[in-house]
C-alpha cells in the first residue's frame, strides 16, 4: 500500500506546529497503524532526519499510551479499538491520512504527537485510590458483591486512562475518565469508605487542571477504546450530590 500522510510536527512544547506531508510506501495491510509509522520513521532516520515522536508501549490495547487522532477521530475509525490495534487494512491504497495529537489545554504537546497526560495522574492522586488497609487477598465471596454491580464496576475499571475521551470532547472534558474511576470505586465495598471525599477532590483537581465541563454529547463514549458509557458520568453527578449532602454543604 502507498499512503499519503499529513502528520503534526512540533519541535517542542512552545514551538509552533504544523502538518507535514509524508508518503508511506510499501505498507502491508496487516501492519498496525503504529508499525506503519515505524516504517516511516525508519526511512526518516536513514535520511538523517528527525523521527516522528509518538507514544506507545504495550501495542496490544491495554496500557493506554498510544494517543493519535486519526482523520479527526481519536484512536481512528474502529470502535472499541486503540490506535495500536488499528490495522492498515482499514484504509485503502492511496488514502490520505491526517494524524494529530490529543488537543487540550490540560494535555500540552511535548513533541509532535506526544502529549503530557500527567494531569490524569494528578486527578488520580487527588482521590482515585483507596487508602484503607485491605490486607491480603480476601477469600472468594468473603465480601459479597452482587453480580450486576460487579459487572458494572468491572466495565468501569476497564478504563486505561488513554485520554481519548478528552481528545474527542468539544470541551476537552475529563468527565468520562473521572467518572469511570469514581464508579469503579464507589460501586465496590472497599471503595465506599472514601467515596465522598474522593468525588469532591477529583472533580476539584480536574477543574484546576483546565479540563472543560460536559455537554452530554457522548463523543467520549463513541471513541473510548473500552467503550465506557456516559452513564458513568451520571453516576458521578449522583455521587457529587450525595457527597455534598453528606458534607452538609
Amino acid at each position, binding site marked *: 500500500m502507498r499512503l499519503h500522510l499529513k502528520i503534526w510536527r512540533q519541535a517542542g512544547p512552545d514551538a509552533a506546529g504544523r502538518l507535514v506531508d509524508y508518503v508511506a510506501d510499501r505498507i502491508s495491510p496487516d501492519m498496525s497503524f503504529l508499525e506503519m509509522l515505524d516504517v516511516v520513521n525508519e526511512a526518516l532516520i536513514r535520511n538523517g532526519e528527525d523521527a516522528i515522536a509518538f507514544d506507545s508501549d504495550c501495542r496490544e490495547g491495554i496500557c493506554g499510551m498510544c494517543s493519535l487522532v486519526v482523520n479527526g477521530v481519536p484512536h481512528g475509525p474502529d470502535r472499541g479499538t486503540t490506535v495500536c490495534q488499528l490495522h492498515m487494512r482499514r484504509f485503502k491504497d492511496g488514502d490520505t491520512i491526517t494524524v494529530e495529537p490529543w488537543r487540550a489545554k490540560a494535555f500540552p504537546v511535548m513533541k509532535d504527537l506526544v502529549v503530557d497526560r500527567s494531569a490524569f495522574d494528578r486527578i488520580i492522586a487527588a482521590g482515585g485510590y483507596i487508602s484503607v488497609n485491605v490486607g491480603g487477598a480476601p477469600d472468594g465471596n468473603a465480601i459479597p458483591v452482587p453480580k450486576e454491580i460487579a459487572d458494572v464496576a468491572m466495565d468501569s475499571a476497564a478504563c486505561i486512562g488513554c485520554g481519548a475521551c478528552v481528545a474527542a470532547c468539544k470541551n476537552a472534558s475529563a468527565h468520562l475518565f473521572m467518572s469511570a474511576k469514581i464508579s469503579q470505586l464507589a460501586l465496590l465495598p472497599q471503595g465506599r469508605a472514601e467515596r465522598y471525599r474522593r468525588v469532591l477532590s477529583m472533580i476539584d483537581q480536574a*477543574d484546576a487542571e483546565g479540563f*472543560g465541563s*460536559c455537554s452530554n454529547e457522548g463523543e467520549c463514549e463513541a471513541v473510548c477504546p473500552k467503550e465506557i458509557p*456516559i452513564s458513568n458520568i451520571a453516576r458521578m453527578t449522583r455521587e457529587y*450530590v450525595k457527597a455534598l449532602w453528606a458534607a452538609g454543604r
Partner: protein
Amino acid sequence: MSSRTGVFSSSVGTKIVIGLTGMALVLYLVVHIAGNALVFFGPTVFNQYSHLLLSNPLVPLIEIGLVIIFALHLYKTVRMFIANQQARPVAYVRKKYAGAPSRKTVASSTMIVSGLWLLMFVVIHVTQFKYGAEYEVDGVRDLYRLEMENFANPLLVGFYVVSMLVVGSHLWHGIASAFQSIGADHPRWTPRLLAASKILAVAIAAGFVVIAVWAYVHQAGRVRP
C-alpha cells in the same frame, strides 16, 4: 469548592444548575403552549384565561422566579461555554463526529447559538405581548386582538416560525441532556427518555408554529396592521 456557592461553580455543579433551570423552563413552555391553545376557542375564552392570569396576585411572583431562572440558565451556560472554549486553545486541523453511540447532533453543537437567539426572541416577544398595546374589551385586557394584530404581519410570523424552529433545536438536545446533567440515568428508561424528549421538542415547536400561522391565516384578511 469549599464554600456553599462554590459547589455550583464546579464543572459538575454547573451542569446541575443548567439542567435544573432548563427543566423548569421546559415546564414553563408546556404550560405556556397549553394556555396559548385556548386561542382556538375564540376571543372570549382566550381573554378570560389571560385575565385569570393577570389578576392572580401569585403570577407576578412566578414571573420574577421565571426571570431569575432564565437569567441563571443564561449566565451559567455562557460562562461554561467560555471556559469550555479555553479548555482547547489549539483546535484540531481535522475533526469528525465519532458516530454512534454519540448523541452529538447539529442541535447539540449549536446550543450556545440557539440559546442566544432565544434570548433575543424572548426580549422581542415580551415587548410585543406583555408590554404591547393595551386594548380592552368587557373590562378585561383584549390580548386576543393584540395577538391577531401582531400575527397579521407576515414578517413577524416568519420571525416567530424561525424562532420556534430554534426552540425545537435547543430542546432536541436540551431536554434529555438536562436529565443526564442532574445524574438521572437508567439502563431501561434513558433510551425512552431520549426518544420522548425529541418528541416533546418537536411538539412544542410545532405547537407554537401552528398557533402563529393559524392566527395569520385566520385574521390577516380582516385586520390591517
